[in-house]
């Protein structure tokens, strides 16, 4: 820990670039990288096992040499996972649900983030009467395991003719995403100078204008976090998709689950790992590209003092 702390003391985000270059050789900087690489190793170890498992034939896996590289490497599990593994009567791999997953994840993410941001904005800046109470209850709702309240929701959705439809699954994701999204944005807006909001009020900005034209652009970093959370959560959701989406919109994860989950059937670990890795590609791409929107100092220059 002490190397870490001194490691931090030398390096700072705003360091002049050339000075930084001159300092890369300091032991502190080495400590920093050592920590990061150590952490990365911890995080990557399971991935390593997954990857090598996914390219081993089952015979080798049965031998139980977890960390050893494959003797006979094979990419077949990947092919099988994508297009050959059985998921019931069909044996077409996990690709079947890919489009459905996209159809679900895009609108669900957009709608839930929009509403979360809207709620957070209203709560932080407009403070409507009773809003805090409503938010408190909403937050509490985040702690209810949704399986417990599935029955009434299913009935309600059926009554609204939303059960088993695409809008239905979008709505249910929005509903279950709302507490956390609202919290995320509410707390983010707490750190934006209130004066900005005031200035916009003076400029005649109404509720929506201020939200759309000022606050949303300033929310970029937290939107990135929200996207990470929602894309991951919705992409990986299985039970809601299964229950609410309807047969025609079953997401990829239902196929994934069918591939890797079995009680009494045989398990093809290599295919399971490949399928899992394949399924996680979309969130991973989001993580990778999201970096450029983690902008620094988005409110810089706004207020003095």
């Amino acid at each position, binding site marked *: 820990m002490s190397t870490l702390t001194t490691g931090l003391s030398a390096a700072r985000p705003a360091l002049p670039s050339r000075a930084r270059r001159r300092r890369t050789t300091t032991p502190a900087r080495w400590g920093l990288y050592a920590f990061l690489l150590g952490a990365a190793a911890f995080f990557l170890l399971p991935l390593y096992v997954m990857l090598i498992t996914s390219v081993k034939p089952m015979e080798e896996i049965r031998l139980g040499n977890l960390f050893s590289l494959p003797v006979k490497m094979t990419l077949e599990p990947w092919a099988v996972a994508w297009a050959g593994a059985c998921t019931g009567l069909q044996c077409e791999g996990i690709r079947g649900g890919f489009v459905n997953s996209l159809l679900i994840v895009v609108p669900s993410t957009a709608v839930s983030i929009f509403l979360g941001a809207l709620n957070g904005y209203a709560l932080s800046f407009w403070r409507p009467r009773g809003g805090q109470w409503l938010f408190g209850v909403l937050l509490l709702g985040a702690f209810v395991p949704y399986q417990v309240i599935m029955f009434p929701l299913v009935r309600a959705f059926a009554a609204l003719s939303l059960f088993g439809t695409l809008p239905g699954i979008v709505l249910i994701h929005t509903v279950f995403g709302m507490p956390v999204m609202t919290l995320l944005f509410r707390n983010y807006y707490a750190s934006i100078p209130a004066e900005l909001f005031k200035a916009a009020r*003076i400029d005649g*900005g109404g509720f929506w204008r201020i939200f759309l034209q000022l606050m949303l652009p300033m929310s970029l970093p937290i939107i990135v976090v929200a996207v990470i959370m929602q894309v991951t959560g919705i992409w990986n959701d299985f039970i809601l998709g299964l229950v609410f989406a309807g047969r025609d919109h079953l997401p990829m994860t239902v196929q994934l689950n069918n591939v890797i989950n079995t009680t009494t059937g045989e398990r093809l670990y290599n295919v399971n790992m490949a399928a899992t890795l394949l399924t996680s590609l979309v969130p991973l791409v989001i993580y990778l590209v999201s970096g450029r929107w983690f902008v620094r100092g988005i409110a810089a220059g*706004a207020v*003095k003092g």
Partner: protein
Amino acid sequence: MSSVSIHALNIRLGAAPILESLDLQVREGEFLVLLGPSGCGKSTLLHSIAGLLDVDEGRIEIGGNDVTWADPKDRGIGMVFQSYALYPTLNVERNLSFGLRIAGVERHEIQRRVQRAASMLQLDSLLDRKPSQLSGGQRQRVAIGRALVRQAQVFLFDEPLSNLDAKLRAELRRELKQLHCELGSTMIYVTHDQVEAMTLASRIAVMRAGRIQQIGTPSQVYDTPANLFVAGFLGSPSMNFIDGELGPRTDDQVSFIAHRLQVPLGLYPFLQCPQPGRKVVLGVRPEHLTLQPPGEASGHGTVTLVEPMGSHAIVWLDDHGRRLAVQAPAGQEPAPGAKVAFHLDPARVSLFDHATQQRL
């Protein structure tokens, strides 16, 4: 073109009362300058007029309408925030035009007004910078510009020129005055700059700790301050105060008597009958003390410090423990250590009660 009137306004922030039953009438088209020490509540007052703070008690009227609880955008107000509060994600042009776009002003009208404000504020070359890429003074100018492009009924300026250089400040002062004449808007303007206050104000209101101490034309406030605080607050260097008492009435006139100093008060316009023997404070501004040949002298002192100011110099005298500032024309300053005589213009003094600190 609306009057602003404030009745018995109370505002607390946290537990502390910031404004206490404050009354203020600003006439239509008036240019009111608010003066007061740092932290006295000027910004708070502006924010409450703009509707950005909830009023605890009292009433605010703009143009005769009670707007105490009205929405900021319905008050027809343009405001320059002390902290600028620029929109960080919008460039300068957008910052300036934001309000106009909202109001649905026509595109080329927007362009015209933004152009005008930008050139007045010398921001033309910075229009597509983000606030974070501007210098302090440039940010302040954007803040001013954002208010100016609006054709508001009432403008609130919170130290709008404080971070600008003197030259630009002088230019903008002139532009603001002109704008005021053109638009006829009511303006409430906080500043710490005496020149601004004197040149811009139709009236000056002096605040202290959430209360208004005096309100009047610049010369009223400067020449006949209502109390010791106002007298001491305006003017730089500040008025010289001399403790003493009123002497007995002789030749149908009273004099001010202090240690080694006597000032005849025959010309002094007393507000109430002077009571001889009363403890009073006499105030006289540095420019009403002149360094003179010993013949006509009111007193004598030793020069302790000379501060050249360019156009003039401030000479600090020690008159037996009394410290006096005297304004002398540049180039005619005595050297430190010199013994000099000074003359005090009896027609320009102010007298205050020692106990109540009010003007006599």
